[in-house]
């Protein structure tokens, strides 16, 4: 067996374990939390009274306008100077959640606005109140159009979690770095890490197509696009 293959096989369990223990939980948790934050932010911007919508806009402005790596450093290395000490995983989780929240809020806001006004009126006419109309009529239709851009965010997130290595989270990429430090084989180990990220994003892309297919049935798209 060639040396490089042997090395890849030997290091695979360590890398996969780091992925299972840190990369995947960090991705899933910050996506779910970030998506909820994004929904609240989108609703605040669209329907909130002006101070609320201004706060939401300010939050999105800060997060989108500054580098993610810098945000992580502020949270992990910066906040201790004002007495806020977080362990690395929590700091990363907060950073990624805030990030996902800002980006998805824009996607959700656009998706909600894309539902025709007539759908609100139809919902109100069947007697629904604002909450019921939102939950039963508007959000399901908004979800459908937001699947592709939200999947983009999700896939970017999987890859971005590698930035957590810089604030000492022992995730996939950091494990690769550690093995490189003892084996001096950067090319092999980093390519191996890249392949694992590629596999994770490919699984997500596949889930995205499945979801789009499910949504397509009600749009008559299965018929119309043939």
């Amino acid at each position, binding site marked *: 067996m060639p040396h490089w293959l042997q090395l890849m096989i030997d290091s695979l369990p360590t890398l996969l374990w780091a992925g299972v223990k840190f990369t995947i939980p960090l991705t899933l948790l910050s996506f779910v939390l970030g998506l909820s934050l994004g929904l609240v932010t989108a609703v605040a911007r669209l329907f909130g009274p002006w101070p609320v919508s201004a706060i939401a806009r300010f939050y999105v402005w800060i997060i989108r306008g500054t580098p993610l790596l810098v945000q992580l450093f502020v949270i992990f290395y910066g906040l201790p100077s004002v007495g806020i000490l977080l362990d690395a995983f929590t700091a990363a989780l907060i950073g990624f959640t805030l990030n996902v929240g800002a980006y998805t809020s824009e996607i959700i806001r656009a998706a909600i606005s894309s539902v025709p006004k007539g759908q609100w009126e139809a919902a109100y006419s*069947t007697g629904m109140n604002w909450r019921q109309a939102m939950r039963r009529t508007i959000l399901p239709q908004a979800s459908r159009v937001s699947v592709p851009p939200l999947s983009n965010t999700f896939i970017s997130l999987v890859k971005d979690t590698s930035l957590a290595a810089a604030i000492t989270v022992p995730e996939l990429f950091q494990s690769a770095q550690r093995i490189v430090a003892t084996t001096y084989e950067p090319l092999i180990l980093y390519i191996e890490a890249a392949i694992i990220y590629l596999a994770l994003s490919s699984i997500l892309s596949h889930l995205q197509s499945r979801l789009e297919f499910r949504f397509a049935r009600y*749009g008559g798209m299965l018929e119309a696009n043939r």
Partner: protein
Amino acid sequence: MIELSHIEKRFGDAVILKDISLSFPEGSVSALVGPSGGGKSTLLRCINLLEQPTAGSVRIGAESVDFAPGRKAPWQSIQKVRSQTGMVFQNFQLFPHRTAIENVMEGLLVVQKWSREKARARAMELLTKVGMEHKADAWPANLSGGQQQRVAIARALAPSPKVLLCDEPTSALDPELSAEVVDVLGTLAKEGTTMVMATHDLRLASQVANLVVFLEAGQVVEIGSAEQVFRNPVHERTRQFVSSINAAQTFSA
């Protein structure tokens, strides 16, 4: 019984409805006709309060709300009045993510909190009434315009409203498809459903309505039976309008 008293509606400085008082008896079918921009849709939407009048009051059965400038009407009373109505839109506005029968069940499940079986039975009964039972499980996108509008009528009727409001229910349909919708509305009218509809469709107005209200520039110009308004209008303006649409459509009474 529906009573509108001294309804005024402004959008900014523009006065769209001027001091309109009308009453529609139970079981009556009324057609709002008149030139484009006359305020037909706005008046209809003031009945179910999708648009809130600037001033005046709306009463449906035992529920009523008063409006006055600078005062917010309580949403509970708005909700109560609205729940007495069902609305049919020009472009159907079915919920695209629900099948035909789910569209009809939606209000029963979410608002009336009925059980699924009970809602389904009621929805099936209504779909049968509008001749759509064979398409109960179809998605709206796979239905013709006429079929979508018939499902929309069933949806509007689901909670047994006191009045069915229709805003140009046939004008997005070609003559053949609009005939099926006119038939359904005609049957409902015979069964005593109270209806108010805005329409440019003379066939619909003359076949189904027993009361015609001619509305222009936010005011009621003439009001009378279909026969009277279409055949012997009192006002010169109504005469002109009727002959202009007669020229465009063949009058069939």
